[in-house]
């Protein structure tokens, strides 16, 4: 299907793909394709981790895992867009969404690539703790790669470079009959842009922290993803405490024992 072709294009030629996003080429197609393909990959991996507990958990986790990634993105997107716009970014919200989806799709594909490994251990080892640990490692690794990639492509420097890399004449020739926005021209010198760029880089770092913060709490709210063995199926666990309190409590328990 066409959506997977877009994803394969992203995997094979990431640089060109990102450049196209910076120039708003086929943006809607990219957003739709990345949304659909990443949801499918995440749903498959969610189904596999849910299979550890019960068939009902398979369906629950297949919906929950894409929801975790995509809803976190939707919650955090306005913060990134408005902060960046306030500090001089020319990117549209569609471009921001496409870039974020690029990173999520890469994470989803990497998770999907681990699916046979997870499935293998699911079949051969029925150890809950091991399965949890294995998945924590997989999620951490894929998440780290996805976030590192996002940091690379979202840096204001890369936006400036991408926009400056295409000569204006070529840009005009491509958009015959379309009035080219004069603001799109990189008219400021790099020297003048430096403080702006620095601020936006800091915003990006802050936003990545926020994304992780929101993601952890949403994961806590939507749990269980694995479903503990021997326990009855639970759609959602009671809404008590939060992720961070739980981590602190666990640490205290470990230290007290």
């Amino acid at each position, binding site marked *: *299907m*066409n*959506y997977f072709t877009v994803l394969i294009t992203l995997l094979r030629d990431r640089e060109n793909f990102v450049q196209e996003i910076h120039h708003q*080429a*086929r*943006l*809607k*197609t990219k*957003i*739709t394709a990345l*949304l*659909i393909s990443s*949801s*499918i990959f995440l*749903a498959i991996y969610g189904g596999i981790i849910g299979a550890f507990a019960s068939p*009902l958990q398979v369906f*629950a986790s297949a*919906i*929950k895992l*894409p*929801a975790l990634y*995509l*809803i976190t993105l*939707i919650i955090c997107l306005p913060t990134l867009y408005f902060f960046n716009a306030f500090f001089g970014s020319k990117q549209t919200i569609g471009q921001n969404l496409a870039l974020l989806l690029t990173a999520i799709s890469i994470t989803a594909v990497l998770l999907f690539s681990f699916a046979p490994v997870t499935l293998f251990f699911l079949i051969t080892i029925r150890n809950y703790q091991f399965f949890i640990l294995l998945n924590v490692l997989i999620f951490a690794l894929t998440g780290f790669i996805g976030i590192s990639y996002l940091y690379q492509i979202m840096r204001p420097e890369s936006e400036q470079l991408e926009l400056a890399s295409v000569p204006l004449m070529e840009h005009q020739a*491509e*958009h*015959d*009959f*379309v009035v080219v926005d004069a603001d799109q021209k990189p008219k400021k010198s790099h020297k003048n842009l430096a403080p702006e760029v620095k601020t936006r880089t800091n915003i990006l770092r802050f936003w990545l922290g926020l994304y992780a913060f929101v993601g952890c709490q949403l994961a806590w*709210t*939507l749990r269980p993803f694995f479903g503990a063995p021997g326990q*009855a*199926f*639970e*759609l*959602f666990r009671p*809404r008590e405490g939060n992720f961070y309190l739980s981590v602190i409590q666990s640490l205290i328990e470990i230290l007290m024992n």
Partner: protein
Amino acid sequence: MQSDLKALKIDEGELETLSGLDVNDLFVGGIFGGTYRPSVWRDSKKLFFFCLTEISVFVLILVFTLPIGFILTQNPTPGMGEIQRALQFLTINLSVAGVLMLGWNFYLWNKQKSLASVAKLLDEVDKYNEVIKAVEIIDKLATVGHLPANLINREEVLEALRVTRESLVCALMTEKILRQHKSFIARRHELFANIENNLLALRTLEVNSQANEYGRLLNEALEIGMSVYKEVKKLQN
């Protein structure tokens, strides 16, 4: 594909620039905010992929409406089991997703009216690209010796395709301008005159080449030219 044919082909990127809309085999203007192409109903393969897209969108809506079900099932009635709670959650989520899905399909259907002209022109572009594909196949057959090279008046066909391409480009631009600026635009008369001239050129080429192997392809090019002419005339009115 030979470079001259490659240059003649109108690809999706160029179509986006010309029409100002995201275009693929199934949708014009993208899945969200656009509409489906009428050719979806005529081609079983496209219909199959369209159905797959509908399912994918439904799953996507289900994912995004998860918070609604989550919030509404947070205070279960006492004595309600986990399975019953899951069923309640599923009922709420499926209902919300179903309603949104119906809304989206209604939007697609409604949007089709406003994008009918561009959809028709895109179908003509598809036909044009198919003609190029046919020329490519004949070229390959001629290369391996299945067809005598002198049987093919290749230059004349390429000329016809060039003229057709120009007409299609003009038509797509006219449609885009009229869609984006519905008020009067002086340039449309110039573009329309250009399409009329191209149609005349195509007719002349067809008369000259009726007897040779490429007659059928020229005829197809002429048919595309006629459709484009009619569509632009409709837009003019």
